[in-house]
């Protein structure tokens, strides 16, 4: 089974290497090279997931160069979590590759683009499957680099270059504490193996666990675009739309939440980390939903909604709901990929990404209308679409933490934070999704439609159809405890059964493994959902041509710019760094170079003194030789 996992990771990597090396010479092969290895990966990951069923952990690996105290192991650790997430990653990646084959068919750099997506998929699968934190870090950084290259795919434009650099720098900023956190955990547990770390946490928590997880939150915030490192994701939308769907919606940004879920027993043992994570999630959730409401660019709306939905995952993790968070990760991966791919078709049809220029697209491509409606419904959490169940699972876990709590549960404050922010965000989500839906698909086209590009390629349409199935139906897997929770297993990877729950053998209280919606939070969330959607609908009915975002009034400008956090960072971080760089340059130019120049000048001057004697008169030279000889002779004579 681990061999299949290794193969599933290795095949896209091989495809990427071949694609980068020969893609330009054999452009005809690029398309096959992009899709076929990934298709094999999909089959393998599904085979691993099916074979794994609800078993415990399977781990095989070889030690890499035993060097000393802490060894690095090349291992594949298949448990419920990694098997399922890997299947999601590979499937979405394959659909995106298929979609890209049509979407990017005229792009001159298609071969390198496809190779980078393959490389990204391999790195993500490595992160998902690996059983060693250092190897995970390798995959993590490779993903970051792929993300940088793919955001900057249209590097001819200044915007894309700036966005790529920004994304890279901001995520790296989070990765520095992440690296230190990995080292702290490795030293604390005496091993970098995930299994050893998870088993090595003492029941009451430990100083190294708290320190390590707190530091790791930096990387989680960077990759998953949580406050305070959220600003890179909306800008990253300058990349091609399939990239936004794959990397910046469905998979890579979920890696932050995935790592927390992977090391969950360690996080569960450190209350401080969970509180910080809950605060981060609550802030992110509400603020980015508000930003999404104010955006005018279709992809930026979706980007902020991604940030907001990722905060549901981190919030669920903070409130103790690991299974709920993973559930939301899965459904979000499906419906957000669907939304982005559909947005690609919408932009293709409308010839613009600006919502204020769209309208009335419902009749142009009914399939897109219906699939996007399903995606938006799932995003909002309309029962019975998938998003409803996963969101309610998160809120249910938070409710249990807030009210019932009990020994071993996260602090109650995390539960309250997540409930309040989550319910509020449910309303805001409904509002921005309704605005998007009405403005794009209904009313009259506000700008004459461009010349039709011809029919939408069928390769772009059928990934939408495929993704609609899980978007609508995936929610049911959480309804029974013997389905998703049993598949995921316990947080330390061990097999899970209802008997274990009854006997108290699990890490958490049984309520956290129950993903079915709860009445109280469901009612609150649905009520706010109806309120948000209804308010926007009423505003729209009053004046279909005007943007419902006008209701924000003066708040709208700042909200569209993400509350000017960029400018704040510019003032707080960028400018001081610039100043420091200038000071460094001054010191380098004036002080350090001063020493170098003075050394050279001194030698020059001393040489000038000697040069004076070089006056061309041979007799003077000879006299010098004679004098030297006499001195030597006298010295020798005196010495003797």
């Amino acid at each position: 089974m681990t061999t299949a996992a290794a193969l599933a990771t290795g095949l896209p990597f091989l495809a990427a290497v071949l694609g980068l090396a020969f893609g330009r010479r054999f452009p005809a092969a690029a398309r096959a090279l992009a899709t076929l290895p990934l298709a094999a990966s999909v089959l393998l990951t599904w085979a691993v997931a099916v074979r794994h069923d609800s078993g415990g952990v399977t781990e095989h690996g070889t030690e890499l160069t035993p060097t000393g105290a802490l060894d690095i192991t090349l291992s594949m650790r298949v448990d419920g979590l990694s098997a399922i997430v890997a299947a999601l990653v590979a499937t979405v990646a394959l659909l995106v590759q298929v979609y890209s084959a049509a979407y990017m068919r005229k792009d001159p750099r298609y071969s390198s683009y496809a190779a980078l997506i393959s490389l990204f998929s391999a790195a993500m699968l490595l992160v998902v499957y690996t059983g060693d934190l250092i190897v995970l870090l390798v995959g993590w950084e490779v993903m970051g680099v792929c993300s940088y290259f793919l955001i900057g795919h249209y590097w001819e434009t200044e915007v894309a270059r700036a966005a790529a650099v920004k994304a890279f720098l901001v995520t790296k900023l989070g990765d520095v504490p992440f690296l230190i956190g990995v080292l702290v955990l490795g030293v604390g547990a005496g091993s970098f193996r995930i299994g050893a770390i998870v088993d090595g946490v003492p029941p009451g928590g430990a100083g190294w666990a708290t320190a390590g997880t707190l530091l790791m939150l930096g990387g989680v915030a960077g990759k998953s675009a949580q406050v305070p490192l959220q600003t890179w994701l909306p800008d990253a939308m300058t990349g091609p739309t399939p990239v936004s769907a794959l990397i910046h919606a469905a998979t890579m940004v979920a890696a932050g939440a995935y790592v927390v879920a992977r090391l969950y027993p360690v996080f569960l043992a450190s209350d401080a980390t969970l509180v910080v994570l809950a605060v981060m999630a609550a802030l992110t959730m509400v603020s980015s939903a508000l930003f999404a409401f104010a955006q005018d660019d279709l992809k930026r709306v979706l980007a902020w909604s991604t940030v907001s939905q990722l905060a549901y995952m981190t919030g669920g993790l903070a409130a103790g709901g690991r299974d709920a968070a993973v559930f939301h990760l899965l459904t979000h991966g499906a419906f957000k990929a669907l939304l982005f791919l559909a947005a690609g078709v919408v932009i293709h049809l409308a010839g613009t990404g600006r919502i204020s220029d769209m309208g009335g697209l419902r009749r142009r491509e009914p399939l897109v209308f219906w699939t996007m409606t399903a995606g938006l419904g799932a995003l909002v959490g309309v029962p019975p679409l998938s998003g409803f169940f996963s969101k309610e699972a998160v809120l249910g876990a938070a409710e249990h933490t807030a009210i019932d709590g009990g020994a071993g549960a996260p602090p109650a404050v995390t539960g309250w934070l997540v409930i309040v922010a989550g319910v509020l965000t449910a309303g805001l989500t409904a509002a921005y999704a309704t605005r998007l839906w009405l403005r794009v698909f209904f009313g009259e086209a506000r700008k004459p439609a461009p010349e039709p590009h011809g029919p939408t390629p069928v390769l772009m349409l059928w990934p939408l159809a495929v993704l609609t199935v899980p978007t609508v139906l995936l929610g049911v897997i959480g309804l029974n405890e013997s389905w998703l929770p049993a598949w995921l297993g316990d947080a330390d990877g061990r097999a899970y059964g209802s008997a274990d729950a009854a006997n108290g053998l699990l890490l958490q209280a049984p309520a956290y493994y129950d993903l079915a919606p709860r009445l109280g939070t469901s009612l609150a969330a649905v009520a706010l959902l109806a309120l948000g959607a209804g308010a926007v609908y009423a505003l729209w009915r009053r004046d279909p041509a005007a943007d419902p975002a006008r209701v924000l009034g003066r708040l709208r400008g700042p909200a569209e710019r993400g509350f000017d956090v960029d400018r704040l960072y510019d003032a707080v971080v960028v400018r001081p760094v610039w100043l420091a760089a200038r000071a460094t340059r001054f010191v380098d130019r004036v002080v350090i170079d001063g020493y170098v120049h003075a050394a050279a000048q001194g030698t020059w001057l001393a040489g000038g003194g000697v040069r004076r004697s070089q006056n061309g008169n041979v007799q003077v030279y000879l006299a010098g030789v004679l004098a030297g000889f006499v001195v030597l002779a006298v010295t020798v004579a005196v010495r003797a």
Partner: protein
Amino acid sequence: MHLVYPLVLAVLLFGIGLYGVLARRNAVLVLMSVELMLNAVNVNLVAFDMWLRDTLHAGQALTLFVITIAAAEIGLGLAIVLMIFRNRATSDVSALRDLAEPGAVPRARRRLRTARTRPGSEAA
């Protein structure tokens, strides 16, 4: 004969030659002084050869070498001096400073020299 007489003669010859090499300005006289120094060495070689009663007479043989080489050397040296005199109309050693470091020669003398070395001023 006591060894001291030829040695004193050699010292005198060498001293005169050294003075000539260091102090005379005329290149021909400088060459002649070099010959004097070489011959002081020759005197030494012959004197010690006799004093040591060397059966192989290595000193005398070496003297013959030195005389041969000195003849060749003076031939070359005089040829060079001749060429310099043809080109520059002088054989003053202290005026021949083309290899001096720039800035190490007083300005007035440099101007004099450049005037002399202007192309076209060579003797026909």
